[in-house]
């Protein structure tokens, strides 16, 4: 298969009436889409882009809700030979100004030729387009209709793309993440789909059920492109519906006899704890053969909690699987639990943290239960490197490096970043982990990245937002994540130094003072509206509390340790 266009048109030729996907909509009947509907719907977007003069190889940014329009706009761009990039849309919590700033930054770096959005959002997009911008056209999805007639020449631009050409861009979350669009070629994506299908033992009786957003690699590749190009039905629900009604995922599995899903770790806790008994009536999860834990640190307890809650509804323990993935490798690096249970490794906490070796605990040391992320998929290799980029022995902790036939082409328009990321042809992931019997275990991050609910958060984005609050000393803010076993993800903490010191509140308990409430509230509000992240803990401290590096920067990990130590001491 040469490109996406060929793969999609083949499904259309062979199985036009076969169901490609079923959209589960809020308070409406499910919407089924056949390959024929998919091509006709997408052809509308192809024609609109063509009429607007959009050429092959140009970037098209999609800012659309989880909807039929998003599906068609994505494949319509591909059929035109353009490069789609799906972006999160503005939610009720985000501030429009902050969102506009991110859009402007994105437009500057990716230099898109077109934007496709929904009518209510056109004004917002136009405001983000500066004079002299690369954007030549903004299309309104409500004005684009399926094409009843087309010929093969309608897709010439797409058919003429070569396997090495870039198929799509993926961005990680946050303002800082926008500067890094992962560019993936058709060939890289096909190579990933081939290896990953084998790792999953994917077959035509599979049914994928997903609530994941499509601007994230897990949602876009595992929960969208993989099933659609493989003629495996996809049951798709919106992340916004799922978070308010998590039982809808289980209803999707029951109704369509779902077999495969991918979930970030917190979703196991969330489903186990937050679904009401009355919403589980009629649920049958017997068909679910692989629910892969992916995209944030995995907890054995989360799997256990999920199993305990849903075993009475037919969930098999063998369905609990694991996956290690990143956009830079298209998606999966490794997969565990498909043909045998996920390997559980009980190791000494002290060994891991102090000796940096995953060894059994001795003399009653505290234990950590690690879940294996399984074996690398075919044609992906893993090494574990020390700080000098030398291999470390088995079970020693180091940075995970990967090499594969499905690596990114580059960070789009960022040759500087693309060079740094590679060392002698190996991609340095920034994840820490170890290998044991050819299986990979991921223990944490080398960099300061925070992962909440599978979403990557760059602490500098949050620190910038909090620094803008009046009363906070500029630049004296630190943001970090701390693991929370109950929720199965990280809690975000912000510590900010105040301009005023505690003595200014003579006779008042500082933490009960109106000023303390005002500043913490404002930090919460600004951070949520600027990043869509709700803070768990906000703490204000005196000047001089935060530890700094020799160059005067706030040291995140040192402050995190200090915070945890004080928390422990009570």
């Amino acid at each position, binding site marked *: 298969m040469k490109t996406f266009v060929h793969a999609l048109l083949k499904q259309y030729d062979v199985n036009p009436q076969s169901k490609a996907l079923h959209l589960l909509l*809020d308070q409406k009947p499910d919407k089924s889409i056949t390959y024929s509907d998919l091509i006709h719907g997408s052809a509308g977007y192809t024609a609109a882009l063509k009429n607007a003069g959009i050429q092959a190889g140009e970037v098209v940014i999609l800012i659309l809700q989880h909807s039929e329009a998003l599906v068609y706009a994505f494949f319509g761009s591909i059929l035109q030979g353009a490069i789609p990039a799906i972006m999160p849309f503005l939610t*009720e*919590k985000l501030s429009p100004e902050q969102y506009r700033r991110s859009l402007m930054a994105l437009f500057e770096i990716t230099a898109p030729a077109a934007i496709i959005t929904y009518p209510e959002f056109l004004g917002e997009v136009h405001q983000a387009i500066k004079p002299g911008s690369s954007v030549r056209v903004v299309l309104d999805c409500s004005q684009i209709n399926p094409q009843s007639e087309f010929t093969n020449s309608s897709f010439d631009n797409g058919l003429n793309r070569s396997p090495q050409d870039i198929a799509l861009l993926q961005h990680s979350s946050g303002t800082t993440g926008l500067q890094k669009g992962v560019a993936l070629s058709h060939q890289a994506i096909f190579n990933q789909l081939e290896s990953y299908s084998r790792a999953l033992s994917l077959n035509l009786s599979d049914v994928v059920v997903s609530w994941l957003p499509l601007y994230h690699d897990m949602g876009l590749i595992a929960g969208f492109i993989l099933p659609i190009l493989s003629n495996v039905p996809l049951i798709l629900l919106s992340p*916004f*519906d799922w*978070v*308010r*009604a*998590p*039982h809808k995922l289980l209803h999707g599995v029951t109704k369509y006899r779902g077999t495969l899903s991918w979930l970030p770790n917190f979703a196991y806790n*969330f489903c186990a704890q*937050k679904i*009401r008994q009355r*919403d589980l009536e009629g649920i049958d999860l017997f068909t679910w053969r692989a629910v892969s834990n992916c995209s944030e640190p995995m907890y054995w307890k989360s799997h256990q909690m999920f199993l305990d809650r849903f075993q009475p509804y037919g969930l098999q323990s063998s369905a609990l699987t694991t996956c290690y993935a990143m956009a830079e490798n298209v998606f999966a690096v490794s997969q565990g639990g498909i043909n045998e249970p996920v390997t559980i490794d009980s190791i000494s906490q002290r060994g891991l943290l102090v000796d940096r070796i995953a060894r059994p605990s001795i003399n009653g040391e505290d234990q950590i239960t690690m879940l294996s992320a399984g074996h690398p998929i075919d044609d992906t290799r893993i090494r574990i490197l020390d700080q000098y980029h030398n291999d470390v022995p088995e079970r020693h902790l180091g940075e995970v490096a990967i090499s594969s036939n499905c690596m990114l082409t580059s960070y789009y328009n960022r040759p500087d970043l693309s060079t740094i990321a590679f060392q002698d042809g190996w991609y340095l992931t920034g994840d820490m982990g170890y290998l044991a019997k050819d299986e990979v275990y991921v223990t944490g991050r080398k960099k300061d990245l925070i992962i909440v*609910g599978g979403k990557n958060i760059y602490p500098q984005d949050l620190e910038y937002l909090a620094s803008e609050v009046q009363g906070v000393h500029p630049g004296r803010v630190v943001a970090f994540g701390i693991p929370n076993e109950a929720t199965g993800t990280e809690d975000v903490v912000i510590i900010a130094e105040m301009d005023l010191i505690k003595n200014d509140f003579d006779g008042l*308990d500082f*933490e*009960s003072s109106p000023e303390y*409430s005002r500043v*913490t*509230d404002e930090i*919460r*509000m600004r*951070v*949520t*509206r600027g990043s869509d992240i*709700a803070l*768990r*803990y*906000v703490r204000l401290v005196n000047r001089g509390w935060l530890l700094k590096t020799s160059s005067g920067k706030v040291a995140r990990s040192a402050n995190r340790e200090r915070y945890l130590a004080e928390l422990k001491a009570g």
Partner: protein
Amino acid sequence: MNSEITQILSTYIASQILRQPQRVILPDEPLLSNGLVDSFSLVDLSLFIEKTFNVYIDNTELNRETFDTLTQLADIIQSRK
């Protein structure tokens, strides 16, 4: 009656969601649009309300369209009793 409900909700949100027990939430303070309560906490909030006030609240019922303040939330609870 409503003030009793808002009091209970204020204590719950301050201690369980914000983790700032001393914080007092005013009856007309915006909760969702100011980022005090996020979408993940909405499910917790509806579970808490069902248990505490013995009323029926569906998952999807609590959102920006239905309430943003404790007073509005108390009205919903009151109307279900």
